[in-house]
C-alpha cells in the first residue's frame, strides 16, 4: 500500500511541474507588431538551445509571473545575460518584483563579467506598486551605472517604452530600436497633449526615426525583431565580455582588392571637394561586415566597429560627404561617446581625419559647441586604449587637435603625403597675415593665390609636423593598412589590459 502511494505521488509532482512549465510558455496577446513572447525573444537572441531561464517561477503575488524573463545563454559561444520584459503581464509595467528580478540578472552579469542585453517592452513603473516600483526602478538604474564600469550593456526597444523603461536604456551603451514598433519617451501622447497642447503620435514623440536621426537617444534603427537580434549579435562580436577580458579575434581578411587598388585616388586633391570616407575605410580595414552606429545622427562623423588584421577596432572618421565633415555640437557628442566606450573596453580607436574645422555661428554656439567639443578632447585624453590617427587630407585649427592628435595622446599619428595641417586653411590665413599687402596690391586676386600656394607649401604641408616630431611619419595611402596593423602589434592590445600607462 505504501509503495503504491509513493508511485502515485511521484507522477503527481511530475505532472504538476509539467503544468507549471507549460504555463511559462503562454503567448502574449498579439498587440501591435509584436511577433514573439518575452521568452521566445530571449531564445532567438542567443545561440540555438543555449538559453537557461533564471527563477522562472517567480511570481508577483497576483498570480502573474515576474513580468520579465531573465536568464543566461551564449552568443557565438560566449556567455551573455538577458532580461526580456514580458508585455503580457501588465503591459510590461515595472513593479517591485519585476525590478528585483531585473536586478538579479544585472548583478549576475556584473559579478560574472558577462555582457547584458535588455529587451525592453514596458510602459514604465507599475502604478499600483507606488513607491516600491519607483524604488525598484531607481535601484535598477544604479546597477546600470555600476555595470558601465564592468560589462557592455545593450538595450533593444521592441515596444512602447515610457518613463523608467526609457531611462534604463539611456544608461546603457547602445540602444537598438525597431521601426514603427519600438518607442521611447518620458511621457506618451496623452500627457504631451495635456501639457504642451501638441497633437503628436507616439511615433512622433519617441519613434525610431526621432531617436536615431534627431535626438541621438538610440543608435541603430532596424526593421524587425529578427534584425534587432542579429544586430545585437554582430555588435557583441566586436566586444570583450567585460573590462579586461580578451578581445574576440577573427580570421584576418585583406581589404577588397579593388577598394585597396583605388585607395590612392579616393581623396580629391582639391581640399574643398567632398568624397565618401567609407571608400577610404574599404581600402584599409579588413573585408567583411562593419557595424556603423548612429549612421543617421550627426552624419558628418562616422562611428563604427570593424577589424584590422582580425582584431576588433573602433573607427572614428570625418565624413566629408555629409556637411563637409565638420565638427559641431552634435557630432562632437557622438564622437566623444564612441571614444569613451572604446576606451572603457580597451578597443583601439583608429581616427581618419579630413576636417574643415568646428562649425562657427550663433546657432552652434547656442547649442554649446564649446562644451560639447571639449567632451571630445577629454574623451581622447582620458582613453587608455591604443589611439592611432591618420590625417588623410586637411586638419585645421581646434578640429585638428580634437580629432585624435598626438597632442591629446595618440600613440601613433600619420598624415598622407597630400595632407594639410595648420591653424587655419590657406584662404583665411592669407587674408589675416597679408591684409595690408593684399589691400595695396595691383592684382589682389593673383597675390592671394600666390600667397596661398606659398602658405600651403611652407606652413601647411605635413612635413612641418613630421620634422617637429609631432607626426610619426608622412605616408602614402597604400601604406596605411600595414602601418596600422604593425602599430597595433607594438601596442599588444589583445590582452585588453591598460597598455598605454
Amino acid at each position, binding site marked *: 500500500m505504501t509503495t503504491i502511494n509513493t508511485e502515485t505521488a511521484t507522477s503527481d509532482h511530475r505532472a504538476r511541474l509539467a503544468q507549471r512549465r507549460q504555463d511559462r510558455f503562454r503567448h502574449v496577446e498579439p498587440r501591435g507588431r509584436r511577433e514573439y513572447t518575452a521568452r521566445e525573444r530571449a531564445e532567438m537572441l542567443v545561440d540555438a538551445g543555449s538559453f537557461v531561464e533564471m527563477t522562472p517561477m517567480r511570481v508577483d503575488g497576483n498570480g502573474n509571473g515576474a513580468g520579465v524573463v531573465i536568464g543566461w545563454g551564449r552568443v557565438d559561444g560566449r556567455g551573455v545575460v538577458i532580461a526580456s520584459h514580458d508585455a503580457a503581464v501588465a503591459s510590461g509595467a515595472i513593479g517591485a518584483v519585476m525590478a528585483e528580478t531585473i536586478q538579479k540578472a544585472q548583478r549576475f552579469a556584473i559579478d560574472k563579467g558577462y555582457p547584458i542585453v535588455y529587451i525592453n517592452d514596458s510602459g514604465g513603473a507599475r502604478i499600483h506598486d507606488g513607491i516600491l516600483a519607483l524604488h525598484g526602478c531607481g535601484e535598477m538604474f544604479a546597477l546600470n551605472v555600476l555595470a558601465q564600469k564592468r560589462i557592455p550593456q545593450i538595450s533593444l526597444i521592441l515596444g512602447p517604452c515610457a518613463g523608467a523603461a526609457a531611462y534604463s536604456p539611456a544608461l546603457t551603451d547602445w540602444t537598438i530600436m525597431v521601426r514603427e514598433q519600438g518607442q521611447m519617451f518620458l511621457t506618451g501622447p496623452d500627457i504631451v497633449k495635456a501639457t504642451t497642447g501638441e497633437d503628436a503620435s507616439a511615433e512622433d514623440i519617441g519613434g525610431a526615426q526621432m531617436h536615431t536621426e534627431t535626438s541621438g537617444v538610440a543608435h541603430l534603427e532596424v526593421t524587425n525583431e529578427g534584425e534587432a537580434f542579429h544586430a545585437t549579435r554582430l555588435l557583441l562580436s566586436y566586444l570583450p565580455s567585460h573590462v579586461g577580458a580578451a578581445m574576440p579575434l577573427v580570421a584576418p581578411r585583406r581589404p577588397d582588392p579593388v577598394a585597396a587598388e583605388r585607395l590612392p585616388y579616393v581623396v580629391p586633391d582639391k581640399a574643398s571637394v567632398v568624397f565618401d570616407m567609407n571608400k577610404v575605410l574599404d581600402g584599409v580595414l579588413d573585408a567583411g561586415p562593419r557595424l556603423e552606429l548612429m549612421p543617421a545622427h550627426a552624419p558628418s562623423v562616422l562611428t563604427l566597429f570593424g577589424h584590422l588584421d582580425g582584431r576588433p577596432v573602433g573607427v572614428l572618421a570625418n565624413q566629408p560627404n555629409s*556637411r563637409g565633415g565638420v565638427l559641431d555640437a552634435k557630432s562632437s557628442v557622438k564622437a566623444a561617446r564612441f571614444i569613451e566606450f572604446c576606451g572603457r573596453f580597451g578597443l583601439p580607436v583608429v581616427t581618419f581625419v579630413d576636417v574643415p574645422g568646428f562649425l562657427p555661428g550663433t546657432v552652434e554656439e547656442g547649442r554649446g559647441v564649446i562644451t560639447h567639443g571639449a567632451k571630445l578632447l577629454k574623451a581622447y585624453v582620458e582613453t587608455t586604449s591604443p589611439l592611432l590617427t591618420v590625417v588623410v587630407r586637411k586638419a585645421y585649427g581646434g578640429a585638428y587637435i580634437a580629432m585624435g592628435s598626438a597632442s591629446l595622446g595618440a600613440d601613433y599619428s600619420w598624415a598622407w603625403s597630400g595632407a594639410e595641417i595648420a591653424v587655419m586653411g590657406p584662404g*583665411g590665413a592669407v587674408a589675416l597675415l597679408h591684409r595690408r599687402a593684399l589691400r595695396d596690391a595691383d592684382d589682389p586676386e593673383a597675390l592671394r593665390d600666390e600667397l596661398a600656394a606659398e602658405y600651403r607649401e611652407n606652413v601647411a604641408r605635413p612635413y612641418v609636423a613630421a620634422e617637429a616630431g609631432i607626426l610619426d611619419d608622412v605616408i602614402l595611402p597604400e601604406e596605411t593598412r600595414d602601418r596600422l596593423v604593425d602599430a597595433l602589434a607594438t601596442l599588444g592590445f589583445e590582452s585588453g589590459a591598460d597598455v598605454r600607462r
Partner: protein
Amino acid sequence: MYAARAEIVGNVWRLHAQEGDHVAAGDLVAVLETMKMEIPVLAGESGTVRLHVREGQIVQEGDVIAEIA
C-alpha cells in the same frame, strides 16, 4: 514636390539648375560654400526646378534651396 534643403549654414556659391529647368533625381542643383568646403545640394526627385535662392545668398541649415515638382 521635393524640397532641396541646405544641410548646413553657408552661402550659395553656384546654382547648377536654373528656374524652370528639368532635373533628374540625383542631379546637382546647387553648391553651397561653407568653411571652404563645396557642399553639393542634390535633387531628391526628378521634376521642374523652382529656385528659392540666388547666388551669393547666405542660407541657414534647413533652408529650402529649390522646390522640385
